[in-house]
């Protein structure tokens, strides 16, 4: 089993809270979390609905292995229609909230409708209550967390909340749990705020029972934890330097998007790298990195906990930022740094803190600031538009100013909060938005890592690295090395990564396990925990089903194959330096083969045969 087999349905319009059974036929097909949550979204919403209207639903979903002893089994996802892309949104978070929700006895919460005034939901095991939250509206995530803990007087309550940016309508607002873990991308926080839902707090003491074969399960869990411990990446590399170890790697291979993707290498990369986070600062003699940290049940512990120099201009006289908090991960460091040309580690850490404090996706935020700086450089945005702020590339002051303005939803921050697509359209240069389906790129330039071009173009939630992380193969040689500058063979590679990742995301596990584990390592744990027989083949099939379900939702929402595209800058402007010098992304060499491998039409539509193969809903 491992599923609790219970859903909590919360109608925010009429204030009703109800328990209902989980659809176990769907669980057998879509596993849980990402897959199962999307199945419910497809069943219960019109894909053409207004993402910020009452008809959109907001689903918090755990996986069957969430809250169990499997390493990294603490994940949950938030699923809804995205206000940033108009496509399906599915944002995955770690920390402790997901496991707590599962331990309270719930596989999933489905929020529907819209509250008439601000509310929050509080869960204690089987009891769930909607509570007025007028006092929390206008507060940051950090303030909200503190006030809820003060109200319930239980330090073990876990809180997921939205900040002021979401209330102000920033389209890439995140849901932050445990102060600095995020369901980060695609504006799931914006949807939450649109429902007048400020926070969800949960305390669960039931644990996760119903393991199918407890003895075999614990034996398998112990064996696979050993695999993670003995692997050099998951046992040593990630705990020591975190994901930030990639900054110098990706810069060296010439695939670090810089200055809104004008360049593929950043002169200041080393200053904002994982290695730099270990160095003592000249100013106060302390390193940026305080310690690493782990999410629930994780034996990797890649998380970064950092501090800012108290004398730094961003935090002078602001003691609320002087303590330890969630530090820079690679994607955030890239977006806040290389994309904007800012190479000051403390400024980046400050911007990251504020993104956590007020719930913004640092990837979309940083990339949008990069686009704004590009527009400023061209003269399309001026100081008249910004109210006096100089948005030159490389300006720490501009970055810190932007993050404060977006967090508070003030002035020009409203425009940065719309995301790069709307910003660049407004100022007359739509081609300068480095996005797919309206969502900003992460930290890999497809001119230098060709498979990531196809990954971004076909990602069901808009540009995203976590839907098929071919960087592992193309750069890092995991599971085997492929040439990053070649397009041949990448269609199959991307499809394989997409299907496997969809399965991982649906079980409740962290994708970082895949640096040491394949589905061969996960299937025995899943099989020992859950009803039915769970083989590698079944997991791959379920992953492919999830991918097609998401695609089908997007097509019904109005997207087409034409949305599987990249900005002209990546298709026509060649890389200027590094191994990829002279190259553009060869998307057109990969996309037709990809569609064919997917069993889709040449224009990217899911065929009747594919729909039947995976028993997709009508």
């Amino acid at each position, binding site marked *: 089993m491992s599923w609790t087999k219970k859903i909590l349905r919360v109608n925010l319009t009429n204030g009703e809270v109800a328990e209902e059974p989980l659809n176990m036929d769907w669980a057998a097909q879509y596993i849980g979390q990402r897959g199962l949550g999307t199945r419910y979204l497809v069943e219960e919403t019109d894909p053409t609905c207004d993402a910020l209207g009452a008809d959109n639903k907001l689903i918090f979903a755990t996986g069957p292995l969430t809250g169990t002893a499997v390493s990294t089994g603490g994940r949950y996802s938030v699923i809804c229609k995205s206000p940033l892309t108009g496509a399906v949104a599915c944002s995955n978070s770690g920390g402790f909230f997901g496991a707590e929700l599962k331990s309270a006895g719930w596989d999933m919460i489905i929020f529907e409708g819209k509250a008439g005034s601000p509310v929050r939901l509080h869960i204690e095991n089987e009891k769930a209550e909607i509570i007025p939250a007028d006092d929390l509206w206008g507060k940051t995530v950090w303030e909200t967390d503190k006030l809820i803990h003060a109200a319930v007087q239980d330090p073990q309550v876990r809180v997921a909340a939205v900040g002021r940016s979401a209330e102000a309508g920033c389209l890439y607002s995140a849901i932050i749990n445990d102060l600095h873990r995020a369901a980060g991308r695609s504006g799931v926080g914006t949807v939450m705020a649109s429902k007048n839902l400020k926070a969800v707090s949960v305390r669960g003491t039931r644990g996760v029972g119903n393991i199918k074969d407890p003895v075999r399960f614990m034996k398998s869990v112990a064996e696979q934890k050993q695999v993670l411990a003995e692997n050099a*990446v998951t046992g040593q590399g*990630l705990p020591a*330097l975190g994901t930030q170890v990639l900054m110098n*790697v990706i810069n060296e291979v010439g695939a670090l998007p810089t200055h809104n993707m004008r360049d593929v290498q950043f002169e200041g990369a*080393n200053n904002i790298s994982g290695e730099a986070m270990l160095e003592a600062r000249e100013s106060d003699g302390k390193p940026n990195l305080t310690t690493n940290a782990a999410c629930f049940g994780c034996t990797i512990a890649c998380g970064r906990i950092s501090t800012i120099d108290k004398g730094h201009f961003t935090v002078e006289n602001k003691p609320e930022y002087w303590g330890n908090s969630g530090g820079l991960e*690679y994607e955030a460091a890239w977006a806040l740094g290389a994309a904007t040309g800012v190479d000051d580690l403390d400024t980046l850490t400050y911007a990251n803190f504020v993104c956590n404090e007020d719930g913004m996706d640092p990837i979309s935020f940083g990339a949008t600031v990069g686009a704004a700086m590009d527009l400023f450089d061209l003269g399309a945005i001026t100081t008249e538009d910004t109210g006096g702020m100089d948005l030159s590339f490389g300006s720490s002051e501009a970055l810190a100013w932007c993050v404060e303005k977006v967090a508070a939803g003030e002035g020009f921050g409203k425009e940065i909060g719309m995301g790069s697509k709307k910003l660049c359209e407004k100022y007359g240069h739509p081609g300068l938005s480095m996005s797919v389906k309206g969502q900003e790129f992460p930290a890999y330039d497809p001119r230098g890592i060709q498979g990531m071009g196809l990954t971004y173009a076909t990602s069901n939630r808009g540009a995203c690295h976590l839907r098929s992380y071919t960087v592992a193969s193309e750069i*890092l*040689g995991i599971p085997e090395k492929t040439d990053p500058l070649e397009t041949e063979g990448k269609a199959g590679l991307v499809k394989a990564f997409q299907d496997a990742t969809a399965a991982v995301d649906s079980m409740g596990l962290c994708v*970082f396990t895949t640096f040491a584990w394949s589905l061969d390592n996960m299937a025995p744990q899943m099989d020992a925990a859950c009803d039915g027989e769970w083989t590698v083949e079944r997991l791959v099939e379920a992953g492919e089903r999830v991918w097609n379900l998401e695609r089908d939702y997007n097509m019904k929402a109005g997207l087409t194959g034409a949305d599987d595209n990249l900005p002209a800058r990546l298709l026509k402007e060649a890389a200027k330096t590094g191994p990829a010098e002279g190259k553009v992304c060869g998307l057109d060499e990969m996309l037709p083969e990809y569609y064919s491998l997917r069993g889709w039409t040449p224009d990217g539509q899911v065929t009747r045969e594919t729909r039947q193969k995976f028993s997709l809903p009508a």
Partner: protein
Amino acid sequence: MQITVKMFATLMEYLPEGAVKNTIQVQVEDRTTPYQVIDQYRVPRSEVHLVLVNGVYVDEKSRDLPMKPNDTLAIWPPVAGG
């Protein structure tokens, strides 16, 4: 000839004195290979996973091939991120 040597992540400890930001420029014999440099600085080959010369991946069987003047050799242990 002169080359640039870079060591990252847990291999930083093998960097010689004078290295700045993981980087040092050194004089080596003409036709020196990546493995000769790695051995010279006593970096255990078993700890070296990713080897780049001018940003291009060098597989294990090619790490005995000579480098050119002004090449940049960069090395890492097994690393990953996301």
